[in-house]
């Protein structure tokens, strides 16, 4: 009963927001605040197939939701809904939809929008999905799982485990302090200041660029795209950077001992070239520094070039 009423209220809220019909369509803005009752909000599940989602963490305990709707006319605007369903276990489900109305004239998905800006307690985990809209997660402490089809995906200043998927939406992850698993089919992945235990990223038709990567175990894989990585190797850490057709370039900051293995159509190990030991299987190896537990750096490209630079 409560959940139905909350959904009803959200659907009704825009009606009181006095939709404005402009020459080029109708718009509505509304804001809802939901405070916790018994349990703190622990997880947000957001599905917005109709537009953008931005989730910002803050120090409060309530969830604040701003909705921005756009449609070609008021009749279509009235079909756009946002439902908010809080569950007793601390999970909140936010879903947008367009009502099916067989009597209304058909309207294309590209002609309507619902954009959501959500401010949530920092320690809530966020699971969110969009289709073509932009998906952003900012200033959160419990990570999340984000999914887009073609919309760009952005994560900034987030702690905790972060999992991101997209088909063709570009990914940008900046200042993530937790394990990262980022997978895309045909877009680029940009990583900057990643400091968790594990970083796994893959792109079939796209490049991967990583700066200031300090994850202990790193696995970057592309099929066609280039990989560019600037990283620090942790003690006993593993950096495995692999491409089928793309070139691979790794710039490593000097920290302890490293065992370097490289394989490609062309291998350039820079200042370490003279220390290279050629292996019978076609790999080149070099050891750098002293220590019992060297980090392993493995770079390979089946049909591309491989280059390594040691940053003193």
């Amino acid at each position, binding site marked *: *009963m*409560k959940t139905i*009423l*909350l959904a*009803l*209220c959200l659907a*009704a*809220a*825009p*009606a*009181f*927001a*006095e939709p*404005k019909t*402009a020459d*080029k*369509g109708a*718009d509505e*803005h*509304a804001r*809802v*605040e*939901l*405070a916790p*009752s018994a349990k703190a909000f622990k997880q947000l599940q957001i599905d917005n*197939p*109709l537009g953008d989602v931005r989730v910002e963490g803050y120090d409060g305990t309530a969830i604040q939701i701003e909705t921005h709707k*756009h*449609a070609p006319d008021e009749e279509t605007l009235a079909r756009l809904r946002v439902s908010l369903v*809080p569950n007793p276990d601390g999970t909140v489900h936010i879903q947008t*939809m*367009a*009502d*099916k109305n067989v009597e209304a*004239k*058909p309207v*294309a*998905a*590209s*002609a*309507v*929008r619902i954009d959501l800006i959500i401010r949530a307690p920092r320690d809530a985990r966020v699971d969110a999905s969009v*289709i073509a809209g932009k998906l952003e997660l900012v200033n959160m402490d419990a990570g999340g799982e984000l*999914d887009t*089809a073609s919309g760009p995906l952005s994560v900034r200043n987030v702690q905790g485990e972060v999992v991101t*998927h997209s*088909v*063709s939406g570009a990914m940008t992850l900046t200042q993530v302090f937790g394990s990262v698993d980022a*997978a895309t*089919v*045909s877009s680029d992945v940009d990583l900057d200041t990643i400091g968790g235990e594990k970083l796994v990223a*893959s792109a*079939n038709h796209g490049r991967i660029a990583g700066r200031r990567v300090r994850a202990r175990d790193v696995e970057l*894989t*592309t*099929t066609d795209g280039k990989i560019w990585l600037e990283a620090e190797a942790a003690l006993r850490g593993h950096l*495995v950077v692999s*491409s089928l057709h793309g070139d691979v370039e790794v710039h490593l900051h000097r920290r302890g001992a490293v065992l370097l293995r490289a394989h490609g159509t062309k291998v350039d190990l820079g200042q370490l070239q003279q220390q290279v030991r050629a292996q019978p299987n076609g790999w080149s190896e070099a050891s750098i520094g002293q220590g019992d537990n060297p980090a392993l750096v493995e770079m*390979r490209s*089946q049909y591309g070039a491989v280059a390594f630079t040691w940053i003193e």
Partner: protein
Amino acid sequence: MTCDKTREQLTAYLDGELEGDRGTAVRGHLRTCDACRAMASDEAALRDGLRSLPPLDPPASMWAGVQARLAKEEVAESERPAWRRALARWMPSSPRFGIGMAFVAAVAGVVLVLHHKHEMKRDMVMTTLPHETQAPAPAPAPAPSNADVTAEIAAAPAKTSQDYAQATKELLAAARTESATWSDDQKQAFDAKVGELQAAIDGAAEGRARHKAYRAMLRYLQGAAIRDEVALR
């Protein structure tokens, strides 16, 4: 009296609408069932809290808009031929009936919201932004005559699956090329694993579950085709 039956009647019970033995039965169940009693207690507390909220009135302009549309419709009605007015009285799908029903529905909706506002969650504070003058939104793309947003959204998961299927096909071909250097055992192990992952894809429901199964397949194929994980095993 079961828990389900009790919960169905809880709202009516708290509203004092259950009389006689029906009310007694719910009350009796609540005396013996902790879970239902807790639910009833929550519901009652919620109502108490929400009664203190200020009344939520629709803006006057909403009624002005409805009245203006009705007036316009009445003028149009008066200008119709008599035979069409007579026909319209017998055809509920006529515009006049539609407007009337829309008005009734709007009134019913507002009454429902106002009537139930005291039942809304106590700590939910809903505010609406003041009417804003906005920059014109980007011109919406023209809608294809036969496509609707609901159909497009419903078709999106299958489109994503198609994209994943295409990527799987490409990586599988790459892995087959790399498999020239594998032993027979390695090839068999690879085929068995691919079969298992494909079965998981086929068995998964369209949507997130299937996409997840495709990602597992892609990850395995990347390992096989690009990171030599089959050859090195």
